[in-house]
């Protein structure tokens, strides 16, 4: 038994070693970056030192330079746009995919239209949407909708197609109607796949948001980094990139928590 505790301790020590190693690697990276800037190897006109980014971060709490808004305003604008597009894609896309997967005529009717839209990256919709709808919230939300819609549909479609035949048969022998089987068997069994789709949609919509804001916006995180470039403020650009990255990370984290609750019956 003693032997075992030692083994356990050994493994923990190993984990600790790797953790220290990764902390060191990140710190080294930051340090080299800082030093390169301090000693003038990299020009402050093209890159900002990590400490400078931190300073700018606090400045942006109240300062509106150079893009005309504080960082919180920018975050709020971006969130509003992306969440509008993202949620409307889930609300429309996921049920649509499931219905298409279950009801053949619907599948036959919608599939061709969907296959036409599918290979066009959402970004390519930007010019058309700008001409049609302008550059307001609606236009950007629509572009984000396109980026999130496709994975929502595809995954819930595939998910419901993979419904186990035995489970359908069980419900059938109990005398359930087709719609009841869809509701009680098809929908729950396709949930893990549907969630996988929503996860992809989440990443897509965040990535597309940046593109939309780079091209057509007057506020938002994407707009902020674009302005950072125009006013040669590398600190603002890097701050913007980091904010986008961190927010994306937080979304994924929240989403994983929700997913774990909703599909907690999964074996994996």
């Amino acid at each position: 038994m003693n032997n075992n505790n030692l083994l356990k301790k050994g493994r923990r020590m190993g984990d600790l070693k790797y953790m220290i190693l990764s902390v060191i690697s990140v710190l080294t990276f930051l340090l080299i970056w800082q030093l390169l800037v301090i000693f003038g190897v990299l020009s402050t006109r093209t890159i900002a030192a990590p400490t400078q980014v931190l300073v700018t971060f606090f400045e942006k709490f109240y300062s509106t330079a150079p893009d005309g808004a504080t960082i919180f305003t920018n975050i709020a604008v971006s969130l509003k746009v992306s969440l509008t597009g993202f949620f409307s894609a889930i609300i429309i896309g996921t049920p649509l995919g499931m219905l298409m997967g279950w009801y053949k005529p619907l599948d036959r009717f919608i599939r061709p239209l969907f296959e036409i839209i599918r290979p066009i990256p959402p970004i390519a919709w930007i010019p058309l949407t700008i001409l049609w709808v302008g550059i307001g919230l609606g236009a950007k939300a629509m572009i984000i909708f396109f980026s999130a819609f496709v994975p929502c549909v595809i995954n819930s479609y595939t998910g419901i197609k993979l419904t186990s035949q035995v489970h359908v048969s069980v419900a059938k022998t109990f005398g359930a109607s087709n719609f009841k089987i869809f509701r009680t068997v098809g929908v729950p069994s396709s949930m893990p796949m549907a969630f996988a789709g929503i996860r992809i949609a989440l990443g897509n919509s965040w990535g597309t948001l940046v593109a939309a804001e780079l091209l057509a916006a007057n506020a938002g995180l994407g707009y902020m980094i674009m302005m950072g470039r125009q006013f040669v403020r590398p600190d603002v650009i890097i701050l913007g990139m980091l904010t986008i990255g961190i927010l994306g990370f937080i979304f994924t984290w929240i989403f994983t928590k929700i997913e774990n609750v909703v599909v907690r019956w999964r074996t994996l």
Partner: protein
Amino acid sequence: MSMEQKAGTRLIVKDVSKTFYQKKIEPHHVVDKVSLEVKDNEFLVLLGPGHCGKTVLLNIVSGLMPPDEGSVYLDGEKITKPNPKIGMVFQKLGLMPWKTVIENVEIGPKLSGINVKTRRERAEYFIDLVGLKGFENSYPHQLSGGMKQRVGIARAYTNDPEILIMDEPFGQLDAQTRYNMQNEISRISEHEKRTIIFVTNNIEEALYLGDRIILFTECPARVKEIYDIDLKRPRDMIDPEFLRLRKMISNNTDLAL
């Protein structure tokens, strides 16, 4: 370290124990002070209910996993890592899906650096023996469950082991295929005599195949009883003596709900 042994004994398992520790879960004691001996050229069946402990014991015997306590000796030598003298047919097979049948079968000699010609010949011989001639270039996913089992058996034989461990090889097969494979394995083992350690949870299968049966308890695995089976071969599953033994062993077995 070495161990004295009686004549005719190949493998000695001495006081082997194993416990698993996981975060948040109670320690899982799976093997408890198991000692046993394997004789030369015998067909030894390890019989136990449920899924607890037997596979772990085999992994320890084969050198894939270190025991917490106790040791395993092969011909007096302590086993600390996999030994080419011991071959294994895994429960879930582990055929590599990216290799064809023959590539799967010849993997043992290939890994030990034996040249293509020799290893091909050997692989072909055993593929023929298990009755898969003509399927050399198929991929595993194109084969039925029984055929995959045959590939697993041929793969183990091709590395020319002296001791062959089979871990519930027929657990996933349907009843009829299972009967066929039981006949096949006794045919193959008659043809290519090896020391075989065969693990199963099926009493009928154990009685049909084994020279000796070691009965284990349900979790943690302990040796409960050892039976010498001297029914004549080929055995008959509805022979009264067979049924009597079956009942006796069954009554002595734990129920693993």
